[in-house]
């Protein structure tokens, strides 16, 4: 429920290891809300979420420590440099290896920008800083809200690569995007309808 409007009614789906799920639907259909619901940022009105066969209420910490959520706003601090931003995300996963972070930045094409404050970067570059997390994270479920926004073609391709690698390694992804992602193996689609 959002602003007294019913967004989802009778919606259910399963997601298994190695799968990519793309949420589709017109603006306002509730794609972002569904992701935020799964990420625990919005409360459930009704309905249940199961993680590895257990109700989410019984394994909250385990789920959230296995989940990586990147929203519209990616949580990149403008005052900090890309490297400093990544330090925090790495610390959340207990990663101390500096080379891993340097690699991450060069993989998303930000080599040479490591120490510039992020407010000097473009929107697409900031987005890349956030997505650089995907190269070193050990979390298995990714929830990505419009990850391709503001990215150029090469960056889109490298993110798609990351998604493929992740699903081949047994991870799972749910993402919202207006991009056509036909070539990705293991892709499922879920279309959210018009609000009535």
């Amino acid at each position, binding site marked *: 429920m959002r602003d007294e409007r019913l967004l989802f009614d009778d919606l259910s789906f399963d997601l298994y290891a190695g799968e990519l799920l793309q949420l589709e639907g017109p603006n306002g259909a509730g794609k972002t809300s569904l992701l935020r619901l799964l990420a625990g940022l919005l*409360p459930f009105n009704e309905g249940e979420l199961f993680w590895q066969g257990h109700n989410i209420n019984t394994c909250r910490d385990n789920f959230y420590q296995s989940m990586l959520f990147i929203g519209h706003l990616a949580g990149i601090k403008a005052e900090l440099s890309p490297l400093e931003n990544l330090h925090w995300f790495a610390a959340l996963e207990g990663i101390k290896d500096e080379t891993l972070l340097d690699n991450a930045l060069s993989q998303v094409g930000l080599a040479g920008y490591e120490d510039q404050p992020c407010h000097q970067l473009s929107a697409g570059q900031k987005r890349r800083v956030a997505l650089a997390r995907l190269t070193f994270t050990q979390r298995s479920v990714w929830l990505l809200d419009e990850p391709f926004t503001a990215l150029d073609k090469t960056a889109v391709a490298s993110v798609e690569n990351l998604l493929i690698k992740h699903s081949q390694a047994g991870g799972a992804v749910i993402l919202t995007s207006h991009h056509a992602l036909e070539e990705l193996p293991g892709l499922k689609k879920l279309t959210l309808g018009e609000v009535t």
Partner: protein
Amino acid sequence: MWNWLKTLYHRLGSPKWFYQITGKWLPWFAMSSLLLLGLGLVLGLAYAPMDYQQGNSFRIMYIHVPAAFLAQSVYMMMAAAGVVLLVWKMKMADVVAQALAPIGAIMTFISLVTGAIWGMPTWGTWWMWDARLTSMLILFFLYLGVMALREALSPQEVAAKACALLAIVGVINIPIIKYSVDWWYTLHQPASIKLTEKPAMPASMYLPLLFMVLGFYALLGWSVLLRARAEVLRREAKSGWVRELLKDK
């Protein structure tokens, strides 16, 4: 008994059932409050003896004391409703909390004003920074804060939870505030009614007070139900049973 309470609780969670059952409770609250207040006022104003020190001016106590009682207990109720909302996610608790806040604020205001009026003949000044008046003033600000927060935030569910949290934080702080204010200023009359002690007043003086306190509580129940019922209708305006109800009228 326990099971009965549990069913009652679950049913109260349903707006429709809440609306229907409270419709039946309303006349009882209304009658008992009118009766008790009438009795208390007549006895208190006409039959209670004059105070040997304060003369007739002490009679304002029959408004001041019940209002002060309510001012404090309404805040506790609001926080209790907040706990029910945050822990058990029962939305009707927020309807009640929303109904309580302005009533609590009004009671606090009444107790402040009557305190000031009582102060003039007793202390010779309209306002005195007496510990109890000061605590009451701070309580008044606490109420205003909760109401302002609800006004400012949207959507409703967010405002509801934020107000619940603020009320709970407030309840934890009220004893600290009270203690610190008492400590800051200890020149005041000792509280004249304590539930654990025998009142020092004669029965003809404190019986009307008892009636007035009970009457105020009944009045509180009445007005909270009225406000909560109106709020239920507003929130459920789109649901079938409210449309049905309005069609009949």
